[in-house]
């Protein structure tokens, strides 16, 4: 069987008709969706169209009213519809299942005001209601559908299979055997028994007036009455137990919601802190840039000033040289004048003669004539140059801050982009998750979580009590059945009536058929166990990353234990993630051994796995079925690594996008996301 297309209308968050087209190619279709967008609704859409049933997140079954789109409801549209196009055994089918408002009801206020409508079109021909029902029930029974349409929580139920005395485990075992075709044998045996019993009852009616068997017929009436009472008691226990399981599921959801709320709140706080850090960086850099820009004129005109300073220094050079020469001559003159005055030359170390004095005075006149020194105008000019030089030197040497501003500006932009990204993307998403969670949760503080744990413990104890009761009453029923069978046999055997004798032979014929089916159960079950163990091991080893894990071993409940390579012993305590992978391997193996095939639809199956195991499980997806539709939330698996891991097996990627708080749609996903 292959799914071709599913369309939902006014169902959950999907108000307008919304479709998923399945590719004709084998592989994995991925529909990404954040919490509260409608992933679980899609799983429910498959369950609804195939089984006529829906289950809300609290485990309430068939609360159809809660699945009508809120916006549609406000517009007076009180119906919803799911259409599934599929191919099965070479024929094309369209299954349309919808909810309609009961006659005489204007606006439905409870599920009693609604009813379901089913229509099947087989290769263009509309089937009758009875044939439609028969077809839909035939392609995938409700019990079998749990292996095709499942979520992460369902995978956890398979841990019960390891508890050989668990009634819950027994119930899952029964579902497993359904997918493997075992009911053909078990019901073949029980229905043949019923046929034998019917033939025997008819014979007993003929024989009951016979004196020889009257004592046995009275005992048989009493035993039949006991059996009816026991079956009623069993039914009561089962119903009480189911109610407990519903309560347990609700409590588990509340505990998970509390944990999710804590995680989301912590994430929100961390995002807000990060945003504050980025905002602080923006402020700091902005302030620093403003500070630098305040004096920016200094380094902006520095190159011009530097050139001006060079020009000035060049202009000053002649005047400065003249001033220096003049100063040197003045010292010499002063020295000569001192020698004349003292009549003694300290250089020659002897008294200055009048002749020499004359020469020295002539020398002074010569020096004065040769070097006139700076004129008064030149002195003023030089002083002015010097003042300008001091001012220019102060600003011409200011460091260029442009690079610093660029670095700080880049830092500011990076922080601003990060801040905006956090605000517009991360914060908005986590707030959306919180909103979705708060909308569903009734009490999610830590104190409440402790109460939930406490109540969970009590419910678990109640379930265990009911389990024991069911086992006890079940054993009593088997005993009574055996008594009834023996009494029937005795009545027929002791009767002298010819018709009864013939009926006796017919009973034996029917019982022989029942025996063939009954004996077949054990033989076929053994074979299936071996096949499932082998195939589950093959899938598990594809995912396995532990060096010492060598394979899986199956128990009577189809529970699988990981076996160590080193000593051949079971791994004693497995983490929740490994349990999850084993359950996944089991489902893959069941699909390989089922007498029919079909697509697998999985809603958020990875939430208990770490990164490495998630990666391994993602890689193994194409192994479990030809058509796989996965409904993960971003963060559960990494989109880009998933693309690498599954590669060509990805046939399409879609996403559930929010239109408004009560409306979603499905669109093609950009692989850049």
């Amino acid at each position, binding site marked *: 069987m292959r799914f071709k297309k599913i369309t939902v209308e006014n169902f959950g968050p999907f108000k307008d008709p919304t479709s998923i087209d399945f590719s004709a190619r084998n592989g994995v279709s991925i529909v990404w969706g954040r919490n509260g967008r409608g992933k679980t609704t899609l799983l429910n859409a498959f369950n609804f169209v195939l089984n006529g049933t829906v289950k809300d997140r609290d485990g309430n079954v068939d609360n159809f009213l809660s699945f009508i789109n809120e916006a549609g409801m406000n517009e007076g549209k009180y119906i919803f519809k799911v259409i599934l196009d599929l191919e099965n055994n070479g024929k094309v089918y369209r299954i349309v299942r919808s909810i309609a408002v009961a006659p005489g009801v204007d606006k439905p206020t409870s599920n009693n005001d609604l009813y379901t409508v089913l229509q099947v079109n087989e290769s263009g021909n509309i089937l009758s209601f009875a044939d439609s029902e028969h077809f839909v029930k035939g392609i995938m029974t409700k019990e079998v559908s749990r292996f095709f349409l499942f979520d992460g929580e369902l995978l956890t139920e398979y841990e019960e299979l390891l508890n050989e005395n668990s009634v819950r485990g027994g119930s899952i075992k029964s579902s497993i055997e359904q997918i493997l075709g075992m009911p*053909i044998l078990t019901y073949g045996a029980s229905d043949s028994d019923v046929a034998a019993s019917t033939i025997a009852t008819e014979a007993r009616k003929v024989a009951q007036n016979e004196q020889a068997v009257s004592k046995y017929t009275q005992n048989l009436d009493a035993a039949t009455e006991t059996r009816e009472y026991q079956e009623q008691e069993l039914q009561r226990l089962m119903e009480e137990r189911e109610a407990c399981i519903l309560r347990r599921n609700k409590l588990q959801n509340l505990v998970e919601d509390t944990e999710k709320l804590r995680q989301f709140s912590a994430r929100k706080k961390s995002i807000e802190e990060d945003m504050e850090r980025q905002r602080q960086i923006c402020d700091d850099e902005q302030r620093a840039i403003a500070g630098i820009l305040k004096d920016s004129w200094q380094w902006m005109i520095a190159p011009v000033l530097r050139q001006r300073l060079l020009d000035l220094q060049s202009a000053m050079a002649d005047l400065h040289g003249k001033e220096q020469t003049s100063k040197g001559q003045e010292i010499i003159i002063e020295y000569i004048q001192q020698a004349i005055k003292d009549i003694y030359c300290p250089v020659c170390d002897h008294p200055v003669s009048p002749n020499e004095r004359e020469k020295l005075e002539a020398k002074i006149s010569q020096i004065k004539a040769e070097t006139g020194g700076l004129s008064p105008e030149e002195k003023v000019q030089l002083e002015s140059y010097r003042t300008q030089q001091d001012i220019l030197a102060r600003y011409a040497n200011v460091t260029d801050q442009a690079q610093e501003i660029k670095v700080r500006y880049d830092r500011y932009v990076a922080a601003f982009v990060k801040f905006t990204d956090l605000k517009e993307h991360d914060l908005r998403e986590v707030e959306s998750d919180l909103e979705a969670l708060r909308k569903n949760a009734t009490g999610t503080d830590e104190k409440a979580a402790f109460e939930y744990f406490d109540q969970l413990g009590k419910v678990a104890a109640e379930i265990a009590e009911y389990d024991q009761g069911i086992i006890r009453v079940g054993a009593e029923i088997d005993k009574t059945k055996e008594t009834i069978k023996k009494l029937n046999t005795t009545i027929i055997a002791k009767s002298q009536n010819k018709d009864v004798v013939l009926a006796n032979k017919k009973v034996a014929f029917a019982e022989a058929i029942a025996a063939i089916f009954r004996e077949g159960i054990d033989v076929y079950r053994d074979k299936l166990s071996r096949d499932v163990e082998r195939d589950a091991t093959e899938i598990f080893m594809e995912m396995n990353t532990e060096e010492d894990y060598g394979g899986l071993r199956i128990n009577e409940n189809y529970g699988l234990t990981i076996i160590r390579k080193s000593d051949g012993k079971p791994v004693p305590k497995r983490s929740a993630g490994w349990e999850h992978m084993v359950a996944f391997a089991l489902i893959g193996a069941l699909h390989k051994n089922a007498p029919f095939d079909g697509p697998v639809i999985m809603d958020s199956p990875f939430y208990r796995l770490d990164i490495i195991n998630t990666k391994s499980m993602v890689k193994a997806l194409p192994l479990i079925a030809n058509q796989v539709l996965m409904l993960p939330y971003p963060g559960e698996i990494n989109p880009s690594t998933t693309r690498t891991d599954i590669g060509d097996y990805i046939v399409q990627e879609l996403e559930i996008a929010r239109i408004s708080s009560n409306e979603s749609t499905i669109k093609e996903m950009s692989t850049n996301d």
Partner: protein
Amino acid sequence: MKNNLDELRSTLESIRAAKYPEIPAEVISAIIEVQNQNQNDPTRRQRETQKMIIQYSNQIKADGGNEQ
């Protein structure tokens, strides 16, 4: 995927041939088919199985013979 009931049929045929040769092979095959076709319809499944058994058992005679 196996996609058929051959293994299951063959398992029952081995048991029938070895231990219950007086039971016709066809009745077992017919019941397997009835069971497979009506898995989610218990009433119909039980009724059709019984009909099949009665149909075959009606060939049995009171004096020990079988009409077949």
